[in-house]
């Protein structure tokens, strides 16, 4: 995989940012609410994709259980919203409890009365759970496909737990948020959705810079080292367990933020967020966008989901075929993803094939874009 970057002109970068910010500010007025809401949701999904890129693209850990942390973040947000808007229901507890004859709030709901606690819980709880799962797995040097299987199994465990506990968290029905109140406003209202869109857009950019900062410097180098040759990193005197646990819980925290944003924009959180297919889908966003490229993860998440909604509206049955084909195509033909292909030798090779650009042949090979120095 090539990490070499095409260097852009400063003016281009500046104009890119100006256009981007202008689009974000203008989007709520340009798009109808339905499309704006969809865009906001996909943008929030790109935050979880960033986490997947950090652990898979950079560290080589393929987690099939990011849905756990995504849903945990969503549940944290939804529990706060449910509690704060339950004053007119019997016993001052959320409405659904009455269905199951529960009269007292379960103990773990209590802290969610506080907005400050919720604000931190949204990302700290998923990060802690991820850290715990990660530590238990990494400590035993379980890796590769074993790690993937175990994350998938834990996903199923969480799904079963949340799906089966009606009396604690409304089980399979999930928690609704669109009719709840936040700071005196209805969460599902147009005004709030617009605010959420802006928050999401800002957080995506913040998460992107955060991820860039994480993979920069020595910490990032060790992550890439773990991906490429873990025993060698260990023999050099580093303890991969610590680095893997840290990056896994960072990815978990990002997934939590993403889940909370997705929940308030889609109006409900339910165990469906923890199904097996959804978590594997997150991987394919990153794979198509280009793993190890961060920006690729964001673009992949937004574009694939947009394509999904377009295709599903037109031909509902064909999306599964397309998605399955994408999985096969991207690992066999395009292992670096679209962005990786553009940044690597892809376009040059294509131009050469059509005879538009002459191939440079020297020995030793000329370092056109410093490819060898970086990795492999």
């Amino acid at each position: 995989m090539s990490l070499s970057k095409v260097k852009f002109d400063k003016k281009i970068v500046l104009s890119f940012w100006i256009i981007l910010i202008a689009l974000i500010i203008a989007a709520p007025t340009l798009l109808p609410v339905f499309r704006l809401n969809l865009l906001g949701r996909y943008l929030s999904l790109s935050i979880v994709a960033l986490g997947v890129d950090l652990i898979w693209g950079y560290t080589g850990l393929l987690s099939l259980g990011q849905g756990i942390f995504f849903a945990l973040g969503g549940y944290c947000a939804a529990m706060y919203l449910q509690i704060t808007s339950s004053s007119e229901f019997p016993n001052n507890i959320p409405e659904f409890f009455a269905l199951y004859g529960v009269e007292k709030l379960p103990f773990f709901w209590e802290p969610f009365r506080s907005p400050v606690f919720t604000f931190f819980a949204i990302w700290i709880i998923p990060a802690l759970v991820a850290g715990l799962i990660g530590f238990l797995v990494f400590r035993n040097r379980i890796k590769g496909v074993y790690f993937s299987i175990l994350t998938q199994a834990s996903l199923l465990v969480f799904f079963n737990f949340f799906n089966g506990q009606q009396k604690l968290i409304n089980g399979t029905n999930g928690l609704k948020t669109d009719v709840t109140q936040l700071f005196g406003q209805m969460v599902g209202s147009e005004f709030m959705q617009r605010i959420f869109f802006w928050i999401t857009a800002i957080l995506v950019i913040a998460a992107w810079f955060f991820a860039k900062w994480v993979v920069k410097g020595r910490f990032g180098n060790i992550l890439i080292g773990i991906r490429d040759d873990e025993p060698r990193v260990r023999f050099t005197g580093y303890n991969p367990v610590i680095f893997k646990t840290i990056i896994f819980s960072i990815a978990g925290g990002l997934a939590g933020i993403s889940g909370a944003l997705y929940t308030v924009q889609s109006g409900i959180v339910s165990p469906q967020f923890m199904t097996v297919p959804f978590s594997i889908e997150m991987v394919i966003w990153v794979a198509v966008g280009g793993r190890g490229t961060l920006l690729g993860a964001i673009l992949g998440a937004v574009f694939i989901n947009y394509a999904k909604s377009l295709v599903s509206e037109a031909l509902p049955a064909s999306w599964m075929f397309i998605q399955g084909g994408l999985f096969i195509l991207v690992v066999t033909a395009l292992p670096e993803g679209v962005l990786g292909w553009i940044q690597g030798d892809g376009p040059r090779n294509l131009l050469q094939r059509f005879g538009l650009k002459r191939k440079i042949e020297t020995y030793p090979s000329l370092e056109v874009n410093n490819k060898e120095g970086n990795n492999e």
Partner: protein
Amino acid sequence: MELLLDSLFNGVAIGSVLLVAALGLAIVFGLMGVINLAHGELMMLGAYTTYVTQLIFKLPILKPFYNSYIIVSIFLAFIVSGVVGILLEKTIIRKLYGSPLETLLATWGVSLILQQFVRSVPLAYGTGLVISLLIGLFLPTTFPSKIKESINFKYFKFSSWIFAALTGVLTGSLISSSVSKLSRASARNVDVTAPSWMRGQVEIIGTAFPKTRLMIIVITLISVIAITLFLNQSAWGMRIRAVTQNRQMSDCLGISTEKVDIITFGIGSGLAGVAGVAVSLLGSVGPNVGGNYIVGCFMVVVLGGVGNLLGTVLASFGIGIMTDLIGAGRLLSIWPDMPLPLSNTINFFATTSMARVMIFALIVMFLQFKPTGLFPQKGRMVEN
């Protein structure tokens, strides 16, 4: 005592389904280090094969043999899933050896396609497609060696594929015209009814056991014995074991690892098909039937360790018995007056889904002590 026996039998019944499903997975994973996420869908193909066989045996010509359809379908399911597996290996998995994570993603893509395939293609034509694949893949290998070595062999191959395609279309339309249930695509679940001799119950030591469950145990037993004999007694079995132990060295000694890979993958997939027959006896068959079992199978493989069938057997029966003990809350009936906090905990986990939660926790705890499963492969490599 009776309760214990009941629990043991239930556990063995659950475990034998797990075992027959995980057997193929364990062999493929042990040999190639490949995680086949489409394994559940190969099981689903086996289950659908049972359904199709059952309907075909209802035709007037085959009606007298109706009671034996389940035996026939076991062989057919093995062949159908095996052929699809071989095709999968030849087209996709072969390109991805050495990158297990990529294989995992690619096989997930295959599983999505297979699921949607049974939803949107009529089963009759699906059968036709499988038949043409079967002929196209195996007809060229039956030619005499004189033709095989000739330079024009590719034309023979090509013409046999054309023949295969024609036969497939013909059988497809034949089946769809004679069995109306198979002529339309539907995403609805279908039901396999057991033949009359398999309905009802058998009484063993005072407890009644359903015959279908016994049948599944028998299928599992036969599969395990057959695969053990194959691996330990036949020449190809020896080659498979050699490649499992050391791929490069076997390659150097003249074993065609390519052929070994195909055979192993074919057998592993075929066993998934047999598991599909077993699953079809337990409940209705739908496009998602494989997904319910796949994670359990992975747990068996992780717990049992790679490259040892004994580990797979013990792990699946262990998980089966634990599932029954926890899920049905039997511990409580065995020990009725246990302290309250303990009994509350047990009651909390006494549903099928919560039992899974508990079992996973137990497996993770177990892996803290034995990270490579019950029977790990010995070696001095840095990796693995």
